[in-house]
């Protein structure tokens, strides 16, 4: 007999500073990423966010960038594709 236990995040130790959250919004999709150290490229249809672990490549249309404190960045618009690369290059 196996016991199903829900995961308790607090028992897993501190969360990674790298964190992504995607939500559906009125004008498309909102992607919030924390742990961002730089924005390599930003245009109407493409955004490249640099983190310590690698890059987040966002493709879409009518993209807008919103910068918060503590290295948190929100990209909103008609996001069509999100890609990740390992390493800073």
């Amino acid at each position, binding site marked *: 007999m196996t016991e199903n236990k829900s995961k308790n995040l607090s028992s897993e130790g501190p969360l990674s500073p790298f964190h992504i959250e995607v939500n559906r919004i009125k004008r498309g999709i909102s992607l919030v990423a924390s742990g*961002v*150290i*730089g*924005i*390599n*490229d*930003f*245009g*109407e*249809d493409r955004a*490249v966010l640099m983190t310590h672990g690698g890059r987040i490549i966002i493709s879409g249309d*009518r*993209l*807008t*960038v*919103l*910068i*918060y*404190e*503590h*290295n948190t*960045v929100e990209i909103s618009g008609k996001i069509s594709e999100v890609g990740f690369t390992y390493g800073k290059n």
Partner: protein
Amino acid sequence: MVRIDCLIFGYRKIKIPKDAVAKVTTRFLHMGVSVKISSDGEFTVRERDREKAHTALSGIEYTESECLGLLGAYKKIKNKPLVFSAVAVCMLFSSLSSCVVWDVRIDGNERITDAQIALELEGAGLSVGAPWWQLDRSKIEATLLRNSSEISWVNINRRGSVAYVSVAEKHTTDGDKSVVPSGYANVVARADCVIEEITVKRGVATVKQGDTVKKGDVLISGVLPAEAGGGFCYAEGCVIGRMSDTIGVTVERSYVKKSEKSKKIASVDLKIFNFSANIFKSYGNSDTECDIIKEIKTFSLFGKALLPLEISIDYATEYSKEACEYTDSEMVSVASARLTMLTDLALTHADLLKIRTSGHFTDTGYVMSNELVFTADVSSTLEFASE
């Protein structure tokens, strides 16, 4: 969309070249400045973050708007004393005007009229124009309860500049011993009728359903029979009787018609709060007959709150009289209108069972009548002495 804190504390719109967006966002990210940048390079910066934004934009060509939002508006009008003072006066006036009672609204009353309660409230200190800071609502409530014998509960609420007064009236229920009248009485018929229904609260019924009674007949007796212990009581009850009545009107063919000759303003009075001032008055007597028509204009704020401002205009309207005659159809319509009004009045406290309308022309006019059959309360209390 501009954030509400930006609108209040001021913001600036900055436009940078599209190719510099990535570089600028990275700088803002490192500096911890919160901004929203669109892909065409336009963004808004809070006024307090302006210095940081300048640092972040060093080496980049950009255009910056002047301060916008409430702070920007303040900075603009600060150097224009006339506009500034006008705005200040408006704000002062609006703040002062909210310090007084603009309207008193009363609800919850059925038997006591609004005017009676308003009079009691005025006596207690709450009236239109009274300053709020001088009003102790709990004290007014206590005064109202003490002075009025018909109010059992009162609550005064303030919403904006309007006082909402809720009252509860004292109930005179059947079981209340204090409302039993003293003395002795019979219940008698106040009209000739056929008894339809009889409900006895106190006393002995002397008639039954279907009996025909005449005006003044005893319906419920206050004299108790020997089986019930004898003696007298104050008879009470409700007796519904069926009765008939005829209402008629006569319209004469010839009548005097008044036609308006002129309408002049006789006087104009301005009333602010409880202060009234006459601002115009005409003198002199007219040789023809005239009616004085009073017109009172009130003003409200957006159709809701009544302003404590009234303009009362008296018009002197001169008339000339001339003899006229109705046509046959006009006579019938006038008679019909008058008869409808009289019938409605007669049936105010009655239920109509049957109506028959008839009319005929006479030598001088038109006669119209309604024969009504209706039920109504026919009981009337007649007190008597025990000797």
